[in-house]
């Protein structure tokens, strides 16, 4: 299998697929265009018609992001990343379990359950935010990191479930069943057969949930009650604040921070040998 794959890859490389490559390259440029505009604006102060480059550059936006006395810069960033990771892991586990229940078993309520799981897609995330706020305050988990993680997980769940159902279905149960028949314990057979097959989906689900949590504003505000601060809640007033330079500086730092976390994630995967397996997947 591996050998034939390698051969296929080589063959494809030789073919070159210039058209496809060009298409992808154009898309990359389109993606980078607005990002670079934001990046330039983060260090521009005045940029009037009809100039193609700013008249006045300034670092005040960047300084505001890095050194604003209230922002507690790195601490807030660290907390946001930690919350987002917790959400990613929690949501993915819940979603993986739900997907397993839906794909591998027949039970009463299965259809309704799988339908309800995706309904949050259709209802803007926060119809529920306010009612939930009261519930959380009663339960004493408002204004706690745990409460914020829980609330974010609810938002991320439909995405994670959709991804996990796809891979769980594709993985099937045959291998795991076979392992069981050969006498392996349930956990062992799961870990050695199904888990590797689920890995691409798990990674997708983790990255999606991570992004959703990291960029969540209103919910964090309500549940966190100002006590739990994340990068998104610190950034938001500036995005709507009318100062383009500062808004752009926050925006670009947000993108960079997320991107760097993904690069590290990527590096860890490679380091632990998972990279190769998932080579083909998004």
């Amino acid at each position, binding site marked *: 299998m591996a050998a034939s794959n390698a051969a296929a890859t080589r063959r494809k490389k030789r073919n070159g697929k210039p058209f496809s490559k060009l298409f992808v390259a154009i898309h990359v440029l389109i993606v980078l265009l607005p990002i670079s505009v934001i990046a330039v604006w983060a260090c521009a102060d005045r940029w009037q018609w009809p100039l193609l480059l700013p008249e006045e550059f300034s670092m005040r936006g960047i300084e505001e992001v890095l050194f604003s006395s209230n922002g507690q810069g790195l601490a807030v960033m660290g907390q946001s990343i930690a919350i987002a990771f917790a959400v990613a892991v929690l949501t993915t586990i819940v979603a993986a379990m739900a997907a397993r229940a839906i794909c591998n078993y027949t039970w009463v309520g299965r259809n309704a359950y799988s339908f309800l799981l995706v309904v949050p897609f259709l209802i*803007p995330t926060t119809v529920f935010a306010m009612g939930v706020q*009261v519930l959380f305050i*009663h339960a004493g988990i408002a204004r706690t990191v745990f409460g914020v993680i829980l609330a974010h997980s609810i938002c991320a769940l439909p995405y994670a479930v959709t991804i996990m159902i796809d891979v769980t279905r594709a993985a099937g149960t045959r291998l795991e069943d076979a392992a069981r028949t050969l006498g392996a314990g349930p956990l062992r057979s799961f870990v050695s057969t199904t888990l590797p097959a689920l890995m691409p989906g798990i990674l997708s689900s983790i990255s999606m949930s991570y992004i959703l949590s990291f*960029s*969540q504003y*209103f919910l964090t505000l*309500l549940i966190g009650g100002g006590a739990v601060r994340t990068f998104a809640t610190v950034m938001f007033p*500036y995005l709507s*604040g009318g100062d383009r330079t500062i808004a752009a500086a926050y925006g670009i730092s947000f993108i960079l921070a997320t991107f760097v976390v993904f690069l590290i994630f990527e590096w860890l995967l490679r380091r632990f040998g998972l990279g190769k397996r998932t080579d083909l997947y998004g």
Partner: protein
Amino acid sequence: MKNVSMPAVSRRKFLALTGATGSTVVLGGALAGCSGSSEPASDGEGSDAEIDYTNWDAVLEAAKGQTVSWYGYGGSEPRNEWIESVLTPLLKEKYDITLDLVGMDINDILSQLSGEMQANAEEGTIDFIWINGENFYSAKENGYLWGPFCEYLPNFNDYVDGESADIAYDFGSAVEGYEAPYGKAQMQMWVDSSVIAETPKNPEEFLAFCQAHPGQVTYPQPGDFTGTAFICCLIAGVVGKEEFEKLSMMTDPSEDEVKAIIEPGLEYLRSLNPHLWNQGTTFPADSNTVSTMYADGELVMNMGYGAPQALVDDGTLPETTKSFLFDTGTVGNTNFMAIAANAPHKAAALVAINEVISPEMQLSQYEVLGNMSVLDMEKLDEADRTAFDDVELGVSQLPLSDLLAVRVAEPAGPVVPIIEQIWLDEVVGK
């Protein structure tokens, strides 16, 4: 920031670039609003219950060591900077109070507050809030605010004229001691004087100005508070100050009553349309977009509460930026600070609010932020008054006396949405 002096405290939330959460605010907030609390307002109970607030020394004593949270619009960088670098250290040093500034849009603050009130949280998270207009009215009506407290504040008693219309009424609703003034704001317009030599002085000249710069003038869609305030300036100019200020007294206005007063103004606004950006068929949704278009050179005029001095200092706008007013008047309002009914640190909140309205801090805000003071100049001693007079204004700033000379009261809270609806029905695209 062009709205340096008071953006967030407007009656409405900033209609502005909003973040990832999309309709979040719509729906979430909608829920918030629908579930008010029936708690009575003035239960000052909580940890501070036994304090005698009429004894200022006791308040100072109780406040010592407390951390007080101040919730308000957080998107104005110069203002945040002022609070953090001037006010916060001062409170720490003088009173051992730690000020924690939490930047949020007013709707989100009220959502959070109403959620906490619903849950009957006896001790909330919010101590005091930067607020005004209908947000104040609605928070007060629903018992979210603690008070009356202004009478406890020495600086309020000594330096503020509590009887003046600007302080006693907030967009037409009686303040009754439930909020203390923070600053005054007034509409002004500005242009780049290297491009525009002559600025219009009244609606007539403004029409000529628009004709001279076809497609290069517009205003934010009313509904955005800057847009509403700007058309109010024009309407007031057309119908006259006296007639217009009738709107600020209305408590239960009907559409017909409002229309009867502003009709000539509507006619005038329609006559502007053909010369405006996009021929007046569409208007930018918020003042941020207008500012962007102005900064880039697509528009020749911008407007807002307060001068854009911070932007000039940044270099975002040129040194040749000049503000102007209409002789026929521009609308102004006052923004305030209120204490939450379930505030955990009411004593410290009182001390902090008292400090914000001290002559020194009001002067400092005037110097640094160009904020119009809420103090009664007559009540200040000689030295303080001179200090205010001696403040050197930035190139884009107008003297206080010029502003106050043409100040027109804003319409009462309930009138504003009616004006906006009428504009939508009868002005845009007509």
